[in-house]
């Protein structure tokens, strides 16, 4: 067996074993502010400096009262140095145990880590799951921040762009994270689909597709936002529940702009998120508007 094969075996075993470690839920608590521990450590240090300065000052001062001298200064007792960590757990422990914990009795199979059939989640739960991510994606779209957008893309599937609520799985453009990161400056002309009504091929760069079939209105300020509940509807059927059964749908919707059209000039942008390793990632962006 070659070194490469041996190393591959080690990698496989480590990944298989370590990925089974249960990870407690966590949120980012850290901030850019200085560590709280700094002033705690600085206090005794400053005290020592002050006392030493006083001692030196007293030693150098003329003996006008006969009491000056090293012996006249109380020595500091800097023994109590506060701990700078939050991790101290004074639990007496035995040596690390390395024996298998497989003595645990057989337990029911766990539910998968990633939520599946997410499109069936009730709206409130769907909102709770993806709202923050959906808003972040909308803001990235609004800012034309391809690099940011790329961080939300499904790492393997990428993001499929659909001009209308009917998703063409075979022909809609799918952009991977690397493509998204450079999308706004990518000169490549892509065939995005066929325009409904005119029946013409829509061949555009991403930068030109974006203002027509992605962010044609300010969806970040959409008056209506729904989760797993379609708001906009027109003549184009919506097959997203079939195409994205494991995804939560977030819809940003404008019911209309010009009263004379009676709501037929509605706009929607639908974002579809699937869970990947416990994180909601973007798999689809579907534009919606009235078509004839």
């Amino acid at each position, binding site marked *: 067996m070659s070194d490469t094969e041996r190393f591959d075996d*080690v990698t496989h075993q*480590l990944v298989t074993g370590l990925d089974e470690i*249960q990870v407690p839920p966590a949120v*980012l608590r*850290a901030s850019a502010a200085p560590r709280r521990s700094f002033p705690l450590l600085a206090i005794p240090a400053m005290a020592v400096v002050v006392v030493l300065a006083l001692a030196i000052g007293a030693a150098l001062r003329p003996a006008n009262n006969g009491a000056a001298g090293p012996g006249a200064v109380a020595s500091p007792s800097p023994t109590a140095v506060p701990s700078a960590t939050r991790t101290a757990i004074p639990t*007496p422990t035995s040596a690390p145990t*390395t024996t298998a914990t*497989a003595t645990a009795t057989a337990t029911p199979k766990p539910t998968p880590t990633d939520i599946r059939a997410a499109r069936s989640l009730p709206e409130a739960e769907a909102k709770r799951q993806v709202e923050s991510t959906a808003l972040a994606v909308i803001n990235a779209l609004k800012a034309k921040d391809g690099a940011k957008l790329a961080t939300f893309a499904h790492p393997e599937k990428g993001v499929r762009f659909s001009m209308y609520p009917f998703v063409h799985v075979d022909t809609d453009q799918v952009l991977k994270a690397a493509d998204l990161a450079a999308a706004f400056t990518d000169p490549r002309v892509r065939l995005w689909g066929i325009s409904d009504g005119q029946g013409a091929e829509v061949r555009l760069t991403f930068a030109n597709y974006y203002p027509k079939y992605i962010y044609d209105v300010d969806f970040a300020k959409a008056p209506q936002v729904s989760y797993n509940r379609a708001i906009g509807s027109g003549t184009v059927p919506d097959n997203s529940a079939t195409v994205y059964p494991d995804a939560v749908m977030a819809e940003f919707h404008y019911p209309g702009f010009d009263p004379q059209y009676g709501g037929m000039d509605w706009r929607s942008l639908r974002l579809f998120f699937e869970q990947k390793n416990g994180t909601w990632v973007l798999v689809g962006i579907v534009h919606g508007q009235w078509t004839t």
Partner: protein
Amino acid sequence: MTARPTADTLDWERVFDTQYRSLYRALVGATGRTEGVDDAIQDAFAEGLRGKLPNDARSVEGWLFVVALNRIKRSRRRGLRFVPLRQQESSADPLDAAVTRADVLARLATLSERERELLVAKFYVGLTQDELAKALGMSRGTVSSAISRAAARFRAGGTQ
């Protein structure tokens, strides 16, 4: 974990969301402990938020791992005592997963601290040998031979 080039506008919350689990597992594997791991990861992200991420960092995740690992080691040197990993195990795990995990952790535990760090950093986190040499204060040649020895001992169940 995959390498992700950094930028001044790095979305640390997003990195946290996507990398916390892998970092946690890597640090548990490298240290054999769970206590203090979350705090160490939080401190590593705090360093990142304060702009400490080097511009030439090849992998944000690799850098976070090294910072957090050093944080744990410093805490240990200060005499802090941790709860052994076994006390953190979940009895709700399926049997096969528990066996796999326990076997890997048990074999890692037979290695020296340095060997554990090398193996996890190299094969789980994906650090290069140059990055390992810099992070662990070793020469590149020493890293190479130490990895080979550690890998052999790990595969043999630590009996070599």
